[in-house]
């Protein structure tokens, strides 16, 4: 009976605690939690793509960055008095706004860009790969090159991207002052709501025939092909969904962190996104959320207290998880229950 209560009750208890968090935590701690929840949205996409689809993306930072930069560009423009240029453009000596910046002044365009751009870019890229049956290690390596090229491009085009420092110094979003505590709480609840929606959506997708087929194509690609299925569109859609969630995650993260920069989208952060999921359990949406938040807290704590130690620990974590705990924490829980 207690066991049943614990199993059934725990998720609801956690949700209740998460809902109440703004009243229990300091503004700083709440902001931290909100960032980690935003990251967890990206992790949900990797559960679908990597855990169930068997497709490892080492380039999720690209889609995270597309979402983040889209909302950041909007906020940079919205904060400006009409006709003037964002601060970093002035510093680098630009005299006019680049044409592709202009539409981001519209909130509707920026929102659409956050929701559509990463998903479409992801689907397009994935299609070019899966239609030629490029998968496995090759696919992973090419996505890593994608993250590298994106970050390098951002750094080198300082006058239009903010360069190494990225975009920062936002005042308001859609007219709400970000410094206002109420706005901070609202954004936290929004992030929580989107995380819950993502969780429910991914669980439903995994429980549907789509999830079964995706897993079957991972385990028996040729058998599925010769049962009449073409894996390419399924994989493209899975990648597109993961890219969509990464873009959403990037936009929310940018709102909470108040900055988006190449250091958050390149090769290193992209592969760290994978380890967040691996720790919690690549097959389990709940595990991925838990793992993401736990590792993010650990990083925050250890890397501020013992910065040199953190990279050794992170390296050891990468090795330990795949060799000792391939199912992640969720796999461990499942084993103990069984």
């Amino acid at each position: 009976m207690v066991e049943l209560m614990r199993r059934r009750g725990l998720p609801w208890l956690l949700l209740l605690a998460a809902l109440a968090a703004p009243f229990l935590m300091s503004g700083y701690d709440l902001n931290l939690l909100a960032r980690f929840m935003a990251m967890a949205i990206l992790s949900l996409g990797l559960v679908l793509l990597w855990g169930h689809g068997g497709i490892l993306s080492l380039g999720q930072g690209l889609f995270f960055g597309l979402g983040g930069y889209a909302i950041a560009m909007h906020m940079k423009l919205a904060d400006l008095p009409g006709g003037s240029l964002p601060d970093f453009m002035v510093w680098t000596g630009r005299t006019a706004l680049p044409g592709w910046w202009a539409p981001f002044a519209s909130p509707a365009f920026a929102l659409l860009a956050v929701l559509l751009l990463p998903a479409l870019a992801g689907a397009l890229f994935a299609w070019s790969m899966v239609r030629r049956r490029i998968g496995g290690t090759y696919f992973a390596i090419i996505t890593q090159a994608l993250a590298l090229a994106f970050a390098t491009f951002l750094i080198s085009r300082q006058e239009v991207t903010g360069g190494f420092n990225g975009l920062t110094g936002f005042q308001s979003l859609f007219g709400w002052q970000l410094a206002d505590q109420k706005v901070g709480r609202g954004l936290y609840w929004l992030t929580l709501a989107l995380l819950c929606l993502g969780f429910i959506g991914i669980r439903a997708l995994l429980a549907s025939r789509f999830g079964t087929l995706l897993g079957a194509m991972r385990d028996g690609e040729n058998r599925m092909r010769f049962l009449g299925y073409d894996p390419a569109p399924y994989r493209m859609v899975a990648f597109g969904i993961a890219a969509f969630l990464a873009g959403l995650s990037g936009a929310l993260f940018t709102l909470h962190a108040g900055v988006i920069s190449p250091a958050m989208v390149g090769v290193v952060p992209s592969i760290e996104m994978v380890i967040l999921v691996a720790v919690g359990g690549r097959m389990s949406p709940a595990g991925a959320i838990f793992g993401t938040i736990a590792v993010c807290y650990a990083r925050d704590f250890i890397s501020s207290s013992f910065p040199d130690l953190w990279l050794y620990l992170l390296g050891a974590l990468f090795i330990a998880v795949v060799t000792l705990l391939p199912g992640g924490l969720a796999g461990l829980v499942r084993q103990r229950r069984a």
Partner: protein
Amino acid sequence: MTTATADLLLAVDGVTVDYSGFKALDGFSLTLGRRETRVVIGPNGAGKSTLCDCIIGRVRPSAGRILLRGEDITQKPEHAIVGAGICRKFQAPGVLAALSVAQNLALAARRDRRWWKALGTGMSAAEQETVAAVLAEIDLAGRREVLAGTLSHGEKQWLEIGMVVATGAELLLLDEPTAGMGPAETSRTAALIRRLAQSRSVLVIDHDMRFVEELGAQVTVMHQGRFLFQGGIADVRADAQVAQVYLGSHR
């Protein structure tokens, strides 16, 4: 034994497969009628599996054509060939170990394989009917919810035959369906194939002569990628040329 054009289902027409100098198939031709069962035999390296590979589009021939109901399918994508009505059972059972027996059959039984149609759960009435019928046919109805990975080797072979049947294919390619089976299981498999063959065309590859005899079908003998002989099993046994290249080498 020629078949009238109207009854012709499959025509392999002068197909050559060249693995950088080594010809796995060398101008090979074969026709198969509707509801005809054919057994293809030949010594190792005769090109039997490559023939299957060509028909299902896994290997593209460098010369020749493959026609299904008169339509050229030589360059069609694999999934389109299955859609046109050909499905193959591989030598090593390729069942999906992590799914139940019923789930394996359900995947095969789906006619509409477009991704957005997969967003729902459950099976349509027609699919349920197919799955139930196939389960009865392959005699695994009692193991419906068992994970396919936990089946015995023989059961896996039957399940994969069932999956191929569940696609609704008009032509079944069965590549060594009795590989790894004992005599009792082999006989059951032969009986299963004879039942299935009543309403479809079946192309069987095997070299277990007792099994081939039990199937009681026409036999095509291949040798070094080429056609060697065709006839009943008795004729095959009596033919000196066949004895030399095939049966002789088995002794």
